[in-house]
């Protein structure tokens, strides 16, 4: 199969869906030249640096029958439009009793790793998870980003896709033919029997590398990528933990009230799965500080392969009383 980058794969999804459906509009603050060339000025719109206007206009367009993509770029810029995300997009379907549909895809980049410092580095998805009404995507591979975005562009709800800024150049196999990936279906990125590691976004790649290393010592790691946080595939995670008896959740986001906490909870609160646990569940997350600029500090505050390996070893070594 051909290999393309994560960035290309995302772009292909937009192009293909815009070809399929003429009632689509794209908004971003910088000009996507290729889209503009193919679909024209009316549909491919450049906004001023006005995130609230962009996020809100997407709602008005969607409520008026136009499927809309709004590319915010960095998730930190999205905070400027928090009213439109949290008070409007997330709630309108519900507040109006489901009388209208709001097919919107918001795209934002998350993550850190390029000395962008605190205001350009963040993984804010758990904040959005806490406000019902938005669907949340966290694609980690070219295949996933294309399939998930295509599903988003056929879904009738506001969807936010968080695309890690460190993944844009990552290559992977992507079929030429049309496909979609259903929301709420985790992907088992590697099968294993000793420990379940649920990894989010770019961490999937680090965890896969660690799993490969540990396999040489005979530790068999099952790597689960939820792919969508809302809806979240609880079943696949619980089933895996019931099999392995061990769980580590790895997330680049800050630890407090994060998605990793949610993943641990859904395992320990489920009696059947809980009874299968052989060790305490563990999180490997970003440290609870704003992201620092200088590289050594920046690397220090996020999970790396060493920390992931240590956590897996710790749950493997646990003997109980």
């Amino acid at each position: 199969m051909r290999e393309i980058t994560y960035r290309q794969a995302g772009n292909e999804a937009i192009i293909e869906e815009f070809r399929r459906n003429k009632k689509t509009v794209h908004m971003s603050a910088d000009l996507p030249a290729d889209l503009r060339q193919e679909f024209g000025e009316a549909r491919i719109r450049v906004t001023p640096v006005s995130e609230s206007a962009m996020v809100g206009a997407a709602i008005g367009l969607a409520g008026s029958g136009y499927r809309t993509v709004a590319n915010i770029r960095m998730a930190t810029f999205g905070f400027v439009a928090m009213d439109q995300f949290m008070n409007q997009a997330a709630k309108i379907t519900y507040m109006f009793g489901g009388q209208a549909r709001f097919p919107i895809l918001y795209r934002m980049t998350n993550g850190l790793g390029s000395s962008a410092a605190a205001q350009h580095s963040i993984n804010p998805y758990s904040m959005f998870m806490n406000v019902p009404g938005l669907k949340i995507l966290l694609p980690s591979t070219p295949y996933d980003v294309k399939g998930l975005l295509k599903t988003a562009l056929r879904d009738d709800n506001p969807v936010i896709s968080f695309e890690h800024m460190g993944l844009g150049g990552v290559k992977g196999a992507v079929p030429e033919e049309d496909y979609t990936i259903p929301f709420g279906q985790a992907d088992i990125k590697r099968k294993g029997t000793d420990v379940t590691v649920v990894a989010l976004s770019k961490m999937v790649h680090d965890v896969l590398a660690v799993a490969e290393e540990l396999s040489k010592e005979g530790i068999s790691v099952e790597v689960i990528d939820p792919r969508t946080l809302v809806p979240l595939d609880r079943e696949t995670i619980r089933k895996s933990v019931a099999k392995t008896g061990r769980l580590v959740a790895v997330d680049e986001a800050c630890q407090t009230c994060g998605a990793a906490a949610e993943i641990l909870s859904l395992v320990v609160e489920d009696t059947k799965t809980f009874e299968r646990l052989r060790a305490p569940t563990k999180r490997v997350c970003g440290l609870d500080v704003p992201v620092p600029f200088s590289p050594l500090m920046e690397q220090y505050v996020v999970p790396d392969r060493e920390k992931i390996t240590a956590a897996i070893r710790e749950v493997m070594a646990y003997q109980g009383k």
Partner: protein
Amino acid sequence: MPLENKELVNLYRTMLTIRRFEERVSKEFFDGNVRGYVHLYIGEEAIATGVCANLLLTDRIVSHHRGHGHCIAKGADIRLMMAEIFGKKTGYCKGKGGSMHIADFGVGMLGANGIVGAGLPIACGAATAAQLEGKNGVAAVFFGDGGVHEGEFHEAMNLASIWKLPLIFVCENNFYAVNTPSKYAIAIDEIYKRAAAYSMPGMVVDGNDVVAVHQAAREMVKQAREGGGPSFLEARTYRWHGHFESRMSTDSRPPEELAAWKKKCPVEAMERKLLAAGVLTEAQLKEMNSQILGRIEEAVKFAKDSPFPAPEDALEDVYST
């Protein structure tokens, strides 16, 4: 072009319907049948009425927290409105929205909005949709003198202007945001002058004169339909009730101010005009009034007879399926 008698009567009927509807809502509130935040439009009826009379069913509006008047003027069903205000399952939003979130997408009423200023970006989207549809449609957005101090206002004004959106910005200046005088809150002397900063025509009109509002809006709607872009209308008026219905009034506006404005009642002014011009007789006015009261009585009966939603209905409509 002066309005025909039939149009004048329609304007009057709409204003009177809003007035009687809200008087009844107020009564039901103090009788304990309506809960929550209920912001009444009494005293301001001429604005929604005058503007919306220029709109077609396919045109779209976005409203704010004081939204009953806009709903009625755009053609919403007062039975479904009343049921929503009562929190009933048969209401526009199945009891999920209440007074502050009534919407009827079927008549182009894209929702009242509880967040000051938030409707403006959404209206930009509705106007963009109208532009894309290419059928000379327009959108109008209503907001108060307080709304002009939100960042969303400025983003939306600018965006509408650079995109030449067919959008009428209607500022309902009732001189207060809760108890804060608009004169205090604004850095320049007049609100409508802000339009100049966004290269759009701005004008001020007597918001208690429905014919004046209608005429001003007519020009703006015409310009928008012809591709001339957005306009800004400041309509000056006064709210007769407290900021919202409450037993513990915190209204600190001078009582003599209210008394003076009550003498400029938009409904009575129109009534006098119709009588003086011989458009309607006293008897016809009486007849119209009792007809409206009858419809409202029916709406209240419908609301009262309707069931409340079941508790677990709270779980529906978070997403469109």
